């Protein structure tokens, strides 16, 4: 089962205090977005706002990440790394060196700011062709890494795919597959959405969004960055095994364990053969379902 239950990662533009809708949204993660402005003035004015914002979101039950921009990485880290932060999202990572440099800076900040050593995590957002080609090395470059995120809008622009194009299949499906496989190969999980919502970020209706989330989940993503609060609930419900699936897996477990007692390693169930791999999967999915239920309970308690 995924190491972290992070089904919905709500992007919130930096402000102080954090808006109500962000705190009430019920997302597993809040990603503070410092926005495109990197001027010194903006930096200075934000200094005093970050720490309380982090605390507020953590109290609301969400894990806190800050999105660090490559052009101002050092400054962004100085500004935003405070106790209460779970980790950072490194935007548009191209090389493993960027990760190791950020990791070193995190170590220093942990030391100086009373954060437990090595606790801050890194989510590497792959938003370029070079990043995708390097994604396996990136995924292996630091023990702080928890996930690779497929930065679809950045990838779209970097690869110069025609904006506004309507294709019947996701042109990024192979690259996203590569990011996903390389994340797993390194023991990480991966975040991403399915086409075309992955790039239009539209306010889709519930049915469309549900389908899109299920598709992303069935491809292997464990969560998605939510550009709207309206995505959060559907991501929380979608990036996990469904009730029907869990019911089936309960049957699988029962039937297989019964078969084992009778000395069989392979038993039929509803036209399919249940053998060791299917049984293992049932166990994994059942655990995953339970972990999601626990996370939901946690957040519910924090909110009330």
């Amino acid at each position, binding site marked *: 089962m995924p190491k972290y239950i992070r089904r919905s990662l709500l992007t919130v533009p930096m402000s102080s205090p954090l808006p109500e809708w962000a705190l009430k949204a019920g997302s597993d993660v809040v990603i503070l977005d410092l926005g495109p402005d990197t001027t010194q003035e903006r930096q200075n004015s934000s200094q005093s706002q970050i720490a309380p914002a982090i605390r507020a979101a953590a109290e609301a039950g969400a894990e806190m990440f800050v999105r660090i921009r490559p052009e101002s990485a050092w400054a962004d880290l100085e500004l935003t790394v405070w106790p209460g932060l779970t980790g950072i999202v490194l935007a548009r990572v191209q090389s493993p060196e960027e990760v190791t440099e950020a990791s070193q800076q995190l170590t220093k900040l942990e030391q100086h700011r009373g954060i437990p050593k090595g606790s801050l995590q890194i989510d590497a957002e792959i938003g370029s062709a070079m990043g995708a080609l390097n994604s396996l090395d990136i995924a292996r470059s630091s023990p702080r890494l928890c996930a690779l995120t497929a930065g679809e809008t950045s990838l779209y622009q970097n690869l110069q795919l025609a904006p506004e194009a309507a294709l019947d299949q996701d042109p990024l*499906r*192979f690259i996203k*597959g590569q990011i996903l496989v*390389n994340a*797993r*190969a390194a023991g990480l999980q991966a975040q991403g959405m399915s086409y075309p919502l992955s790039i239009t970020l539209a306010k889709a209706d519930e049915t469309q969004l549900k389908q899109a989330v299920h598709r992303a989940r069935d491809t*292997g993503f464990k969560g998605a960055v939510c550009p709207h609060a309206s995505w959060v609930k559907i991501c929380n419900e979608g990036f996990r095994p469904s009730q029907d699936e869990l019911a089936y897996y309960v049957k699988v477990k029962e039937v297989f364990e019964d078969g084992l007692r009778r000395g069989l390693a392979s038993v039929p169930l509803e036209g399919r053969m249940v053998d060791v791999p299917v049984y293992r*999967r049932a166990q994994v999915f059942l655990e995953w379902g339970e972990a999601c239920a626990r996370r939901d309970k946690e957040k519910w308690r924090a909110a009330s």
Partner: protein
Amino acid sequence: MTRVNRSVMFVPINNPRFVDKAWTRGSDAIILDLEDSVPMSEKEKARALVRETIPKVARSGAVIFVRINKEFIKADLEAAIWPGISRVILPKAQTADDVRLVDALLTSLEKERGIEVGAVEIFPLVESALAVANSYAIATSSPRVKVMPDGWGYDTSLDLEIEMFAGFDQYVYIREEPTLAEIAAGVEAMGGPYIPGTTGKVDQKEEGKALATALHDAHIHESIILHPALVEPLVAGLAPTTKEIDWARKVLDIYERLQQEGESVAEVDGKVIDIYEYRNAHELLEWAASCAAKDRHKARAVAKAQSEQGSASSPSVNSKQT
């Protein structure tokens, strides 16, 4: 290419009913399984059965493979590598080193037991994200690796923690990256046992036909199957048709004439004949000859076994006249 394994059928070795019937199925290849179809409590017993099972299933003229356990490589190989075994299926091959370990053990067993050194192939199963990421390294890890599958399967889907069948093609990269790596490494691509969009039910003949057509179109010649019902459609469907053979002979003739005249392209019956058609025609005729030889081999083996046994059951053997 002399290797003809159009259907590669699993036989759970600890099930005497399946073992006794295996030779009647007409499969080109049979896998004696020590892995997933054998429960942990039966593994010892299964190992002890391999040596005597080889001749039982080889009666059909099929080649015999063995699928070992990743956790018991040494014990399984020692029990299984006897004359008559031509390929070891290595599950959960994650790295080139996994394959090299098996390679070294095979070499010493071959030397001990009078098998030509290097003859036993290794078929690494790509069953995890890590294996997919390493597919080129695995494909090039040993000259014993001659055929390899892509990464699609139950174990890979488990590694990624996703449903096996979700109504769309979830596995594009997982199938196609290893396929490219394999072709680049000069290794043949293995097909099956599923094609995208299938339901996972294991005993449908229609699905067998669809699988055979998809593989035939894709120029894939080998396929693992889970159920004997798929043997016949694959053995028939993966061999060239008479029409294809006739056309290939025509292409050869036309192109050789062109070459003599210093030309390189012609159009015949609305079809282009060039170096690419010529190469394909060559390969197809070689493959056709190999399939025919295999069919004759199987027919002779079965006839012999039947006369020795006076068996009442008539096996289904595809004897294509070419």
